[in-house]
């Protein structure tokens, strides 16, 4: 177990170093010069040079990268060019909204995906299965912004139950989380179904049935515990993906998460924020995978043996 953990951790660190390298290179591909954008059109050459020096952008690239890494290790993500604040503070201020949306989304994904997947697997080949699978495909084929705007139109304009966007109460959370939950729920139901179908075919299920257990306890106790493993791995992936924020849904609903911040930063070429947000997302993805690896042995102890 410890060796497994150490191996995964060292892999994770290598990946993170690679991520910093790529974000760093990417930021220098930006066609707009951040110094010029900061200084404004009327700035003199001398002002431009002094700002460049102040930001350390006059040094050669490898040195800039090493400086960036050494500050990173100390928890310093740099300062935003535009907003003149620490990127780490900006990210921390966005974190609650991001985590809240993540929790709400995963709640809806599971609420939709698990029952639908289980039902489809137990009714395999019958019309309930076909309908659920058709709907799940429809769910994953709708663009998030279309679903978001449609839900807004229906439940905030025609039947005004929910606010037209923004952040603050539980009511604000439901529509954005549902939007993401419907598209994610489609994937979850498909995964749950195929995993459940595989498990229901195994010998121990036949044994459980021949013991005279009710179908309900065969499916929900014996089969589910085995079939849920890939779903947990997927939740781990999801945690990481949503750490980057849901750019599209946040923009439709005006949700102040990390995605919205990153999107605004990309438009304004605010490189430190873009790098910070990408890094946070990558850390989230790596940690989410690690978390899934740690949880799975508790549900399926056989993993230890492998």
């Amino acid at each position: 177990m410890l060796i497994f953990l150490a191996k995964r951790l060292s892999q994770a660190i290598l990946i993170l170093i690679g991520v910093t390298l790529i974000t760093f290179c990417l930021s220098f591909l930006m066609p707009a010069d951040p110094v010029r954008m900061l200084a404004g059109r009327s700035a003199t050459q001398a002002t431009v040079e002094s700002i460049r020096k102040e930001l350390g952008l006059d040094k050669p690239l490898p040195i800039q990268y090493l400086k960036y890494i050494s500050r990173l290790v100390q928890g310093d993500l740099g300062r935003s060019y535009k907003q003149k604040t620490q990127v780490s503070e900006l990210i921390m201020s966005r974190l609650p909204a991001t985590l809240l949306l993540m929790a709400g989304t995963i709640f809806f994904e599971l609420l939709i995906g698990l029952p639908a997947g289980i039902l489809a697997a137990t009714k395999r080949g019958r019309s309930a299965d076909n309908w659920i699978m058709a709907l799940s495909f429809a769910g994953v084929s709708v663009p998030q912004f279309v679903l978001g705007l449609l839900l807004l139109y229906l439940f905030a304009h025609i039947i005004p139950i929910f606010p037209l966007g923004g952040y603050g109460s539980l009511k604000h959370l439901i529509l954005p989380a549902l939007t993401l939950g419907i598209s994610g729920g489609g994937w979850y139901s498909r995964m749950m179904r195929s995993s459940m179908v595989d498990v229901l075919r195994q010998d121990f299920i036949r044994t459980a049935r021949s013991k005279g257990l009710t179908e309900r306890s065969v499916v929900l106790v014996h089969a589910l515990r085995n079939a849920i493993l890939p779903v947990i791995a997927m939740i781990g992936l999801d945690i990481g993906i949503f750490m980057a924020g849901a750019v599209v849904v946040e923009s439709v609903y005006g949700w102040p998460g990390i995605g919205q911040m990153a999107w605004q930063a990309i438009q304004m070429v605010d490189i430190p924020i873009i790098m910070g947000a990408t890094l946070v997302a990558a850390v989230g993805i790596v940690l989410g995978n690690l978390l899934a690896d740690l949880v799975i042995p508790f549900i399926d102890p056989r993993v230890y043996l492998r």
Partner: protein
Amino acid sequence: MLYVLQQLLKNKLALFGLVMMILFCGAAVFAPVISPHPPDKQYFEGLTLEGAPLPPNKTFWLGTDLLGRSLFSRLLYGARTSLIIGIAANGAAVLIGAFLGIVAGYVKGLLGTVIMRFTDLMMAFPALLLAIALAAIFRPSLWIVALVIALVNWVQIARVIYSQTVALVEQEYIEAAGAIGAAWPRILFIHIVPHLWPTLLVWGTLGIATTVLLEATLSFLGVGVRPPTPSWGGIIYESQSYFLDAPWLVFFPGIAIMLLSLSFNLVGDALRDALDPTQRGRQ
């Protein structure tokens, strides 16, 4: 091949997908013939006296947009944008992914490790954020958008092809082929690649569904194909602030994106079932 086609036609959902796919391709190819109005023409009578867009009516079947252009015509031409980008971007992603996956799986060694660690790295990147950043860096045209999507989407294909190639290389018949002196190109192209075709075909279809969605998303965020080129995501982007008063400007392009993506998903999924020999004879 005939078996695969039979399976596809037996599956009602796949049949629906196939019909939708053909309809969309037809709409894209024959857009100039079908569309009742030119897509870029701004009609004076296409706006109300207050300058608001018209809802669906007899002249403009799906209504008009904020500039008084026919939405139906713009949707038809938008099908071209979506399909061109979908097919080109996904084709490029499959090519890149297949090439890297096969090389990593067949050559192994240092090169294979480097390639697979690089795909691990790409997996840790938030794909949408990366695509947006890339699209914002290169001022996007049709082909640049396709390239950006390909650069983000090849990763999964590479991983799938890699694991299949590794499994194939370990088979005894490959060892036998090597033992009787077959050269590596022969082993690779005669004994390995043909087994990968089904996977490539499935990804070549399913991937288009993802690509269409990604293109629409980039255009919706304003970093996709530039106006005046009609794009479904772009139409929604342009009319987003107006959508409570003119919901058809979001509704119709939204349905179009969904149906196109859905059709490729359905056909791809049915292809996967039909091409998987372990699924044969099962219901």
